[in-house]
């Protein structure tokens, strides 16, 4: 590739104006050539500054109130769903019912279920513990403020993940790989009461630069993003799924999106599943 052509591709990629398959060429290039990755990072720095050329505008004062009201409502909702006084009786009741069922009817089947539930809980705790450990081990250069932020965020996610996985209304879905998923596997837990889900996936294909996976929840009326994530080097992820609005999903889709998220699942879907009622 000529230097001029290489610069052209890297600049256009940073600007987000490259069509496929040229985008794939750049992703391959930066994967195989650290110098190209550095160059691309430099172009990204320039492109990020272009936003400052937009004329500054004042927001409507009522928007501030709306944003803060929505955040306050959201916090109340989270606090309510995390309040043990609210969900502990349900957990206890569910456990009692489970035991009764086990005793009287299908002991082996129920034990299998309990074992599965335990394995999910273990996965949740292990994933977050690994994340916390890696924060302390690898991010020694990060300021204490940033570290504190990430620890708080991880702690909050642990609480919410446990709330999801122990919710009495939790539903379990097996996610099937599409052709683009190349044999990826996934498992999704969803609790309407909690308003959140827990996703576990393995063998996800590695993504190119500038791309992320995005979780999509679909009901009969709408398709809502549940957030984006990047898997680890082994293609594995354990992640909370937090849609911004309330919905009763009937399907879940994991698709490839540009960094920052997309407005719909797009064509490159890797995992799909049904949230059974």
């Amino acid at each position, binding site marked *: 590739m000529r230097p*001029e052509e290489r*610069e*052209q591709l890297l*600049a*256009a990629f*940073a*600007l*987000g*104006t490259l*069509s496929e398959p040229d985008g794939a060429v750049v992703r391959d290039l930066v994967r195989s050539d650290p110098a190209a990755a550095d160059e691309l990072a*430099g*172009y990204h*720095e*320039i*492109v*990020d*500054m*272009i*936003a*400052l*050329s*937009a*004329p*500054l*505008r*004042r*927001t*409507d004062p009522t*928007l*501030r109130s*709306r*944003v*803060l009201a*929505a*955040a*306050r409502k*959201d*916090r109340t909702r989270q606090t309510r769903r995390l309040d043990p006084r609210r969900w502990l009786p349900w957990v206890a009741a569910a456990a009692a019912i489970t035991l009764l069922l086990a005793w009287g009817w299908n002991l082996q089947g129920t034990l299998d279920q309990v074992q599965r539930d335990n394995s999910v809980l273990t996965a949740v705790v292990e994933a977050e513990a690994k994340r916390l450990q890696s924060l302390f081990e690898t*991010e020694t250069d*990060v*300021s204490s*403020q*940033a570290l504190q*932020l*990430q620890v*708080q*965020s*991880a702690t*909050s996610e642990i609480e919410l993940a446990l709330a999801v996985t122990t919710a009495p209304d939790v539903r379990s879905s097996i996610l099937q790989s599409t052709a683009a998923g190349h044999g990826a596997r996934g498992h999704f837990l969803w609790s309407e009461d909690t308003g959140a889900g827990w996703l576990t996936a393995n063998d996800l294909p590695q993504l190119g630069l500038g791309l992320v996976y995005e979780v999509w929840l679909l009901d009969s009326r709408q398709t809502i993003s549940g*957030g*984006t994530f990047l898997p680890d080097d082994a293609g594995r992820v354990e992640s909370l799924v*937090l849609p*911004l609005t309330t919905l009763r999903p009937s399907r879940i889709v994991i698709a490839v999106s*540009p*960094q*920052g*998220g*997309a*407005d*719909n699942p797009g064509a490159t879907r890797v995992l799909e599943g049904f949230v059974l009622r």
Partner: protein
Amino acid sequence: MVGLGAGELEALEGLYDRYSSLVFSVAVRVLNDRQLAEDVTQEVFLRLWRRPGSYDPERSRFRSWLMSVTRNRSIDERRRVVRRLRLEEREDDAAPDPPGPERFHDPQLEAELAEDRRAVREAMTRLPPPQREVIELAYFGGLTQVEIAALTREPLGTVKTRIRLGIQKLRVALVDLRGEHDVKSAEG
């Protein structure tokens, strides 16, 4: 940001007061619609509220990350609206700014951002108009090179060259600004 991770509403208020005008300005520039820009602004801050950990301070400066998220969401929103309404809008970057929004008058933030904005705007203004046009169509319009070529009725190769030359010139013009950021990062 630490307070945001702890779920402190005051932290969100602080970030909103500091950055909402920037977020809104980029959204208005992309969407050319005040209402849609407000929706995007609200969504950006609520996402930040719900997932403060989605920002990784090791990978980018907060402002750059926030602008990138805002731009992507705005472009997605515009594509969604265009698809839904089957509009065939022609992006005209020479058109005046949409009426309605008032100019920004927060002296503190204005002073803080003034130098960076002046440098970026000056660098953009100094670009030859055809190069500035393709960069703005790509960045604020979210158009691909192929779409820009069709819109401007220029050969694709010409569009590619203009983008490359334009970005290179910005790189040279803004090298001091990048250097300052590096120094600030190192000091911080």
